C-alpha cells in the first residue's frame, strides 16, 4: 500500500462531489440540534458510530473483494430513507467517474458495468481503495472520516462556526474514527452477513424532510 494514495483518496479536494452533502448537518442546524462546537461534536460522534460504522463496513467489504451485488443489497437494506439511497447512489456515480480517471483498472470497470445506475458510495469507495493499492482498513478509515468531515465542513458554512473549532472536533474524534475503522474491518472479514448495521433514527427522519425543502445549501 502507499500512504500517499490514501491521502489523495481521503482529501476533501478529491473531485467526488462530497462537498455538496452535509451528512444531515443542514437539517440538524435548522432544527437547532447543531448550534455550536459542542453540539457539532455530539452530532458527529453519533453519526460516526452509526452511519459511519455501517459505511466503513461496506467499504472494507468491497476492498476485501466481497460480492459486490450482496454488498449493494446490504447497503440498500441499511438505508431505509429513499432520499439517502438516492444520495448514496449519486455519490457513488460521482466517485466512480473520478476514481476511473484517477486509478483506471479492471476492478472499477467491472463495477461500473455491473451497476449502470450507480452503486452505493461506500461500495464504490472500497473498490476504489483496492484500485489505488489500498487495503480494507484504509477504505474503512476513509468512510469513517467522510462520515464526520462532511458535517463539520458544512457546519462551518451553515453556522459560520470557527473553522479552527470545527477541525478540533475532528481531531478529538480521531481515536474513535480509528476504533470504528478497526471494528468495521474486523466485521467485513467475517463476511457480508456480519457487517455492521448501526442506524440513527433522526438522520433517517430528517433526510426526507430536508429533501423536500424548496431551497437548501446542501443536497443531503
Amino acid at each position, binding site marked *: 500500500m502507499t500512504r500517499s494514495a490514501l491521502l489523495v483518496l481521503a482529501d476533501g479536494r478529491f473531485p467526488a462531489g462530497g462537498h455538496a452533502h452535509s451528512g*444531515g448537518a443542514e437539517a*440538524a442546524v435548522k*432544527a437547532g*440540534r*447543531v448550534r455550536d462546537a459542542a*453540539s457539532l*461534536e*455530539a*452530532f*458527529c*460522534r*453519533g*453519526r*460516526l*458510530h*452509526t*452511519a459511519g*460504522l455501517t459505511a466503513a463496513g461496506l467499504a472494507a467489504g468491497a476492498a476485501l473483494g466481497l460480492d459486490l451485488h450482496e454488498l449493494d*443489497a*446490504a447497503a*440498500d*437494506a*441499511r*438505508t*431505509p*430513507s*429513499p*432520499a439517502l*439511497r438516492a444520495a448514496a447512489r449519486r455519490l457513488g456515480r460521482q466517485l466512480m467517474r473520478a476514481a476511473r480517471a484517477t486509478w483506471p483498472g479492471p476492478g472499477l470497470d467491472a463495477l461500473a458495468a455491473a451497476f449502470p445506475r450507480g452503486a452505493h458510495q461506500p461500495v464504490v469507495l472500497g473498490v476504489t481503495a483496492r484500485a489505488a493499492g489500498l487495503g480494507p482498513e484504509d477504505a474503512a478509515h476513509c468512510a469513517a472520516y467522510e462520515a464526520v468531515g462532511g458535517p463539520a465542513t458544512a457546519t462551518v458554512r451553515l453556522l459560520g462556526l470557527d473553522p479552527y473549532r470545527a477541525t478540533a472536533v475532528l481531531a478529538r474524534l480521531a481515536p*474513535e474514527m480509528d476504533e470504528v475503522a478497526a471494528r468495521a474491518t474486523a466485521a467485513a472479514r467475517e463476511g457480508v452477513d456480519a457487517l*455492521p*448495521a*448501526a*442506524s*440513527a*433514527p*433522526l*438522520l*433517517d*427522519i430528517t*433526510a*426526507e*424532510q430536508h429533501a*423536500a425543502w424548496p431551497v437548501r445549501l446542501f443536497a443531503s
Partner: protein
Amino acid sequence: MSLRATARIAAGADGSLPVLESDGPLALRRTRAAAPGWSRVTVVGAMSAPLGGDRLAIETEVRDGARLRVDSAAATLALPGRDPAPAAYDLRLRVGAAASLRWLPEQLVSAHGSHLRVRTAVELAPTARLVLREEQVLGRHGEPPGTLVSRLTVRRAGRPLLDQELAYGPGAPGGWDGGAVLAGHRATGQLLVVEPAYGEEPPAARPLGEHAVLTPLAGPAALVTAVAPDALALRRILDAALAELAPE
C-alpha cells in the same frame, strides 16, 4: 442465577396452533382474535425479565397460508441482574407463503443499570405479509436509561430487506443522545409493513409530523421511524400509521 428460556409458536392455515410452548418467564396464551381467520397469541408474564445474564428467545413459525397476531400483555422491562453479563432476547420469526404475521408487542423499557441485546431475525417468503412494531423506552419515568443494543434483520426470499441496529445507554458507543441519533428523545420506535402489493405501488415517502417519517424500502415494504419524548407520544404516531397502512 441467570436463566435460559425458549418459547415456541407455530400457526397453521386452518387457524390451529400446532405448537404453543411456554418456557420460564415467557408464558404464551391463546387469546381471542379480533379478525376472522386469524389466530392470536399473547405473551404474558415476561414483565420481570430479562435480567442481566438471562437468555430468552421466542421462535415463531407462521406456516403457509396461516394468519397470526402476536402481542403482549404488558411492557417488557429490562432490569439489571446480579449477573453483570448482558441479557439476550432473541426473536426468530418465519412467515411462509401467503401467510401473515402481525407482531405487535408492548414497549421494551430499558431500566437504569440494565444491559440487553435484542436480536430480531425475520425470514419472509416472497408472498408473506408482515406488520412488525418495535418500541424502545429509555428508562422508567425520570431515570437515565440502561444499555440496549437492538438489531432487526429482515430477509425476504433470502435477500436482505431491512437491517438496522439501534444502540443507546451508558454501554453504547458515544453520540447516541446527540443530534444525529436521538437528541434527548426518550422513546423511539419503528413500524414495518411488508406487503407484496407495494412492489407495484409503494407508498410515497413523507414526514409524519416533525419527528417521524414514512419511507418505502428498496423492496416491497414501508417503514415508519419515529422518536418521541415518551412512550405515549410514540404510540400515538405508530398507531396512526398502523391504522393507515395496515388496519386489522
